């Protein structure tokens, strides 16, 4: 009978000759999304610019963005101009840093310490990006571990972890972050022989990373739970696949998608959180900079040199915006839900 012959037809929708994995399908989708590609380009440019900070400081701004330059001067249009300009009108109180020159040196002007804001912004961007990136990694890794353990093992482990997440969840993020920051920034952390100094970037990374864990761990836990009950996990159980292998082979790859979808959005969120903490002067510690601390510096100059606060704010907005756009694209490309919907029709 005819159906005894091998069924060699494949739906032609899978047009590709080489088999395409879900990853590649998603990536292809992502790279077809024009907004997402635009966002990636913007992000790459920002990262490159921040990486070029030392070059900028050395060759363009020609100043050390970490050393106070309170009695220096630069040459502008042939004239020598003080960086910190003492007020001469009236009583002559106060000293105002130079404003945006829109030239290579002091492009956005100077801050209270006479440092080049543009150069500091590039260095600050490094920190902002580093912190938000690694905080995202911390969040995702911890959330994946906690969520997976809770969801997969279930029972008492789950109850304990879920309660813990509940407690953290009910703790307004900023309050928790501020509490932790105040503690750790005044002391640093000592774990056995390792000391993390209080001005280390690891602190904001850990703090920001930790406070958002419940936000990711909860959905992950839910997902793992439903995956654990899914038909294909049941099938694997039925095949006698050991639990650990099921976890690694069947569950984690699916969780990874969720993590990837979360990543850019978390990074955007972390960047905002980092800037907020820095703004409250409990994030990156001076003289190190981040966009948040530069805004804080600028806050003191808001009335005379608003550019010091505005420029880093715009940098944050552009970066976060790009991350959010990328997040949208990644979600569209990776979200298994979207895929399911297509299947159902």
């Amino acid at each position, binding site marked *: *009978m005819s*159906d*005894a*012959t*091998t*069924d*060699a037809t*494949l*739906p032609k*929708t*899978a047009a590709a000759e080489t*088999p*395409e*994995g*879900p990853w590649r399908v998603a990536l292809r989708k992502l790279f077809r999304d024009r907004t997402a590609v635009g966002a990636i380009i913007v992000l790459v440019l920002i990262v490159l610019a921040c990486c070029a900070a030392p070059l900028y400081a050395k060759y363009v701004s020609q100043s050390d963005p970490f050393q106070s330059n309170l009695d220096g001067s630069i040459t502008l249009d042939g004239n020598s101009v003080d960086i910190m300009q003492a007020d001469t009108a009236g009583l002559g109180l106060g000293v105002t840093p130079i404003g945006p020159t829109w030239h290579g040196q002091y492009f956005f002007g100077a801050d209270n310490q006479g440092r080049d804001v543009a150069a500091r912004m590039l260095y600050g961007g490094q920190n902002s990006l580093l912190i938000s990136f690694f905080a995202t990694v911390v969040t995702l890794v911890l959330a994946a571990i906690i969520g997976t353990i809770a969801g997969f093992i279930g029972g008492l482990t789950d109850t304990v972890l879920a309660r813990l997440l509940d407690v953290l969840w009910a703790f307004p993020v900023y309050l928790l972050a501020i509490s932790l920051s105040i503690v750790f920034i005044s002391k640093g952390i000592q774990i056995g022989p390792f000391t993390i100094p209080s001005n280390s970037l690891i602190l904001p990374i850990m703090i920001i990373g930790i406070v958002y864990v419940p936000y990711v761990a909860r959905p992950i836990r839910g997902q793992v739970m439903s995956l654990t009950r*899914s*038909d*294909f996990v*049941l*099938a*694997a*159980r*039925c*095949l*006698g*696949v*050991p*639990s650990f*292998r099921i976890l690694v*082979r*069947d569950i984690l*790859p*699916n969780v990874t998608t969720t993590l990837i979808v979360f990543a850019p959005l978390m990074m955007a969120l972390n960047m905002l959180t980092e800037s907020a903490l820095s703004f409250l002067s409990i994030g990156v510690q001076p003289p190190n900079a981040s966009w948040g601390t530069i805004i804080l510096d600028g806050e003191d100059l808001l009335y005379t040199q608003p550019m010091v606060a505005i420029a880093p704010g715009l940098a944050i907005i552009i970066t976060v915006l790009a991350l959010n756009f990328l997040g949208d694209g990644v979600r569209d490309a990776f979200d*298994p839900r979207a*895929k399911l919907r297509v*299947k159902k029709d």
Partner: protein
Amino acid sequence: MTIPSKPMLKAESLHKTFKVGSRFRAGGIQHLHALSDVSLEVYPGEIVGLVGESGCGKSTLGRCLLRLYDVDDGRITFKDRDITGLSQRELRPLRADMQMVFQDPYSSLNPRRRVGDLIAEPLRVHGKHSASDVQARLRELMELVNLSPDFLTRFPHEFSGGQRQRIGIARAIALSPSLIVADEPVSALDVSVQAQIVNLFMDLQEKLGLTYVFIAHDLSVVRQIATRTAVMYLGGIVELGETDRVLHRPAHPYTAALISAVPEPDPQGNIKARTILRGEPPSPTNPPSGCRFHTRCPVAEARCSAEVPLLRALGDNRSVACHFPLDGSAAAHA
């Protein structure tokens, strides 16, 4: 076919309840009686069909039989070994001998893994095959289920429902089990494809001497494939016997109603004499007293609501759980 006297799988008065609802909501936790007092024997080489309405516990029974669910009460013996109390780890070696094919060919295949990986998984975890063996076996399996071995490197989403179901079957037979529980393996498929898969099941049984518990809600499929049929209603088996007898001379009013409700593509018989059941199946969280079918039964009497009918033999190799079994001929179609 002669039925050997020793069952391969024996389930004795299985009970299974699920907890549903939430502690934090009105109503609290409720107990859903998915299986109550179900006994079933499966003999080597036979195909036991399992039919019944949605939610009557067919899948639950299938899963309990394979110990994918823990039963609350009862005993399951597989090849003379009591497997009721075994842990999942202890069960692992036995898995090679009993397998399952799932209803939904979409959700039962991990979308992130290649077909070859999926089918090879049992071979790898049971560690009986070397890497080259695995490849050879994969090809063999693909041939058995009529798929091109070229497909091994592809991902499930590229396949049609029928092809996916074949992949699921290939995976199930990879370790040459002697028992397969097929949980509605054709319900999600189109008619034309359904026939291919039914044929495949029958071919495989012939070639490999498999034993099936074949769950379906389509009576005609069960008739085509099953040697014996068990009819379930609300967590219990109401009738059990040789397929032809059960389907043509049903003894339980529910079986009769079920059969008469089946629409048939019979061009002439425009409207057949039908006993259409009124009402809907009751909730398994709150099953009726006595005979669970009495709320919808056309022949129910007072006794039915008080006394639980036990599954009893009727003589012609079948049993029925009814106080007033139908005269077989009355329900049979000409």
